[in-house]
């Protein structure tokens, strides 16, 4: 019961999905939309698990007065603030419309936080390339050179430095060449490899060979 039924379910659903890809006739033709709707609904239920888990871990910190319990309190309060506003004070299912309180929070709290976290990447790109881009080996040198050419080739400075060269070997042209030829070749090899890895894992799941996600006993 505990393991057999889930394994049978995985196999059946997987096979139905594969077969329905080849059959336009109903009901097979609409299996994909139906199943993806179902998954979204399950996820909408599962968010309760996540939210409760978050609240429990935070409440636990406050209750036991662990280090940083104050921040746990802030998390709980912000969670309830946006949840209550989103459910009751923001025009129901039109909660994302411009002008709702939910939208106000989104624009002035969520958006700047998210955009800044994203922008911090720019600094990390600099420190990571300083630390890691060393010409230790031939392979590392290739990586470094490709990055170098593409980075310079994408800004006007690149063409200013290489302005004395004939037009078709200026930095911006070199960058375009790297992007179009060796880059796309490497990319394809990786994509084909990933494709094979994914279909093989998918097959393992359907055959029930790979089943750790179901846990023990």
């Amino acid at each position: 019961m505990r393991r057999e039924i889930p394994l049978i379910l995985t196999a059946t659903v997987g096979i139905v999905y594969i077969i329905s890809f080849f059959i336009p006739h109903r009901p097979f033709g609409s299996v994909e939309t139906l199943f993806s709707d179902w998954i979204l609904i399950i996820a909408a239920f599962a968010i309760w698990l996540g939210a409760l888990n978050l609240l429990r871990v935070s409440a636990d910190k406050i209750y036991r007065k662990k280090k940083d319990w104050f921040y746990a309190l802030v998390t709980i309060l912000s969670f309830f603030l946006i949840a209550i506003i989103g459910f009751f004070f923001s025009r129901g299912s039109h909660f994302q419309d411009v002008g709702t309180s939910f939208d106000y929070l989104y624009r002035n709290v969520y958006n700047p936080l998210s955009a800044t976290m994203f922008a911090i990447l720019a600094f990390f790109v600099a420190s990571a390339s300083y630390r890691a881009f060393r010409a230790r080996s031939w392979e590392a040198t290739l990586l470094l050179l490709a990055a170098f050419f593409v980075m310079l080739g994408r800004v006007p400075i690149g063409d200013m430095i290489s302005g004395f060269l004939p037009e078709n070997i200026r930095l911006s042209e070199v960058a375009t060449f790297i992007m179009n030829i060796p880059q796309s070749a490497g990319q394809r090899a990786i994509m084909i490899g990933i494709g094979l890895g994914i279909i093989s894992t998918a097959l393992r799941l359907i055959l029930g060979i790979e089943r750790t996600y179901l846990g023990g006993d």
Partner: protein
Amino acid sequence: METFGLWIAALLTLGIMSFLYKDNPVYKLCESIFIGISAGYWFVSLFWQSMYPRLYLNIRGAVSTLLHEGRISDDRWLYLVAGILGVMMLLRLVPKIGWISRWPLSFIVGSTAGLYFITYLQSNIMNQIRSTIIPIYVPGNLGISISNLIVFVGVFCGLVYFFFSREHKGAFGGAAKVGIWFLMITFGASFGFTVMSRMSLLIGRIDFLFGTWLGLIK
């Protein structure tokens, strides 16, 4: 209200940026607000965008055909299955019968496996083979011949690198080595390329701080 919002946004921006110096109470505060707000955001959106239209409206529609037309045959009843699977997921919270949550889990994994088996076979394998089938020799155009040859060699050697059943030795190892070269160029190029968009984002934030907020930049 808008000015207040602007100040909040600016202070939060600075708070996150302070992380670059080191972990500090202001960052911790921003981090906890961020986690709470975003989890709540997700909680609300999933309800209004999945639970409400896909489950509630479908079932309500099915119930109303039953009541008004007396018809029970309605495809929308199928959504009840999803509702049941969703409730099973929540049964994790009851330790004794928590194992029931494996059912919806295996439903998700099964449909994932089926979907990806097909789509990756088609998009990552078939389509990539198709775009790599190019003439290596194009009469009268040396440039294209050479670039096509480079693409062909790159894909070939790249694939050889990913072989797991043979050690990288001899001619095989040589090809794998060339494959690594191509991969490295790919990674370098894609790194350099991404730098541009990351910098753009930072520039956007600086523009917000100095322009929109402080009004120093016109």
